[in-house]
């Protein structure tokens, strides 16, 4: 499986994104980072075909995204939004069923999933009554169980306590190990460094850097994006990034 974005451009009012090119293959985690308003979510929405690019195109295994049916696209790309709200009080089970809309025999599969993740006691709860962490877990389980080739995640770590955060990061690694592709927006540079194979950094709609995590998450690049100073060091085999207020010169 190979997702390729070629010179994607999008503009609305005074905001212009792109051109952005990158690729993600099976068994790879691609991180998207950058400050607020840099176009990360816009890029994700273009990949989900919720917005249509004004230039460029995206292909999955050579087939243009625009030529796919809604169902075909959902079988290729699953989506984990930042939040989900059920105004008419669906239960956790109903939300999981909704996430598997395009699968056949979804009811049979549902119990298997619920057992695998040990959330039997949440099954009949009102989705809105869950805590932020439980909601995120249910949404993640919904996205994973769509059996898509790739999953697009919009800040999967927000509102989570440390335990849940570790659980979510572990799940993302498991997805990679099972040969699926993950494209994930993360604000936390250390998390980008910890789980991503490659990273795309955006600022004001422009690509500042794209490449392997070790090449992109270096002080020289980060200082072009954020108005802070950075220091990186290797701590027990993984990279740690520290940010400091920039000294006035």
């Amino acid at each position, binding site marked *: 499986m190979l997702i390729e974005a070629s010179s994607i451009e999008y503009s609305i009012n005074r905001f212009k994104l792109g051109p952005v090119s990158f690729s993600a293959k099976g068994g790879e985690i691609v991180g998207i980072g950058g400050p607020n308003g840099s176009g990360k979510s816009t890029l994700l929405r273009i990949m*989900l075909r919720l917005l249509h690019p004004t230039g460029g195109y995206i292909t999955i295994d050579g087939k243009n995204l625009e030529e796919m049916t809604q169902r075909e696209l959902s079988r290729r790309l699953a*989506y984990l939004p930042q939040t989900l709200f059920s105004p008419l*009080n669906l239960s956790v089970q109903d939300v999981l*069923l909704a*996430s598997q*809309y395009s699968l056949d025999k979804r009811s049979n599969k549902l119990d298997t999933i619920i057992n695998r993740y040990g959330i039997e006691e949440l099954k*009949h709860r009102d989705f809105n009554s869950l805590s932020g962490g439980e909601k995120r877990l249910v949404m993640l389980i919904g996205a994973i169980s769509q059996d898509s080739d790739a999953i697009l995640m919009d800040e999967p770590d927000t509102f989570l306590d440390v335990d849940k955060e570790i659980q979510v990061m572990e799940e993302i690694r498991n997805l990679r190990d099972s040969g699926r592709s993950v494209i994930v927006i993360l604000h936390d540079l250390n998390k980008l460094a910890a789980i991503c194979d490659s990273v795309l950094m955006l600022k004001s709609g422009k690509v500042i850097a794209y490449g392997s995590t070790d090449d992109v998450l270096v002080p020289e690049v980060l200082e072009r994006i954020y108005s802070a100073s950075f220091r990186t060091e290797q701590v027990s085999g993984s990279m740690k990034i520290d940010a400091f207020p920039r000294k006035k010169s």
Partner: protein
Amino acid sequence: MFRTLRNLSTGEKYSRSGTLFFISALVLIIAAVSSAFLGVVYISPIEVTKIFLSQIPYLGHYFSAGIDVAHQSEIIVYLREPHILGAVIIGAVLGVGGAVIQSIFKNPITEPYMIGISSGAALGAVLSIAIGLTILGVYTLQLLAFLFSALIVGLIYFFSLRSGRVPIVYMLLTGIAVSVFVSSLVAFMLYNSPNLASTSEVFFWLMGSVDTITWAELIPVALLSIASMFILSLYSKELDTIQLGEDYARSVGVRVESLKIIALTLVTISVSAVVSISGLIGFVGLVVPHISRLIHGGSNRKVIPSSAILGALFLILAYDVSRLIIPPKVVPIGIITGMIGVPFFIYLLRKLAGGYYAD
């Protein structure tokens, strides 16, 4: 019963859904049959039952022998039966329409009338009554109410289109704006109407009633309504998904714009059809889906069929009250649905829901 329901977790509600469906359907049948015992002319329950049984094809003649008075049979067959079945169909359609519209608009305080159905139907009715149009024969009022209702919904949909999509908030706001415009038009026509009688006739129509419904009106409306409700029930999966947000629904593979067109068309056809023969019966479309959700949880797989049953039951009971409250007069049923429905709904929300809608 409410106390017991409140104490059930959603899980227990699920496991009891089957029993609750059976009970509510049974109560509906009992309510509908016993509603035929009520009326200005007293006809004993035994006679009513005999008249019912005499209508069974092939076997009916075994029961017709004992019926005392022929005109009693006419009262039951040509008046009470179409009125009661009318109440069943109208209640069911308004309930299902409410559940669907609330899902599409992702909003618990919407109902089918808000997309222009009520104002459009009123415009059609006023054109027929105040101006005295009879171009479409005896059923000019009904046909005009149906056509104008569909026309106004169509206009609101068209005005809300933004590059091939209908953002649902636009549609809601456009619906409110156009409805105000059409209502002003209706008021203007009434104000200019040469005879006051027509004003009171329109007023009576606007309050809604089922006791003028004839078999000839009911049969086409019932066929349209049952077909629409059946097709809508097939879309319950999609309607569950769309209430989590249109973007999310698209991401899991739902063709959102097609779903909106299909659902809005079916709701418009069925609700306009029932409104054309009953006038505007308020509150059913708003309150019934909520009662269904309180009993069965939020999924439309259960909310749609349950809203059909409970909507029908609600309207049957309102019709009974409308005939009993100041006999021999029959109060327009729309007045009763508001008078009984609102306090009942507030009671339910306070006593039963707890933190259910607290967010």
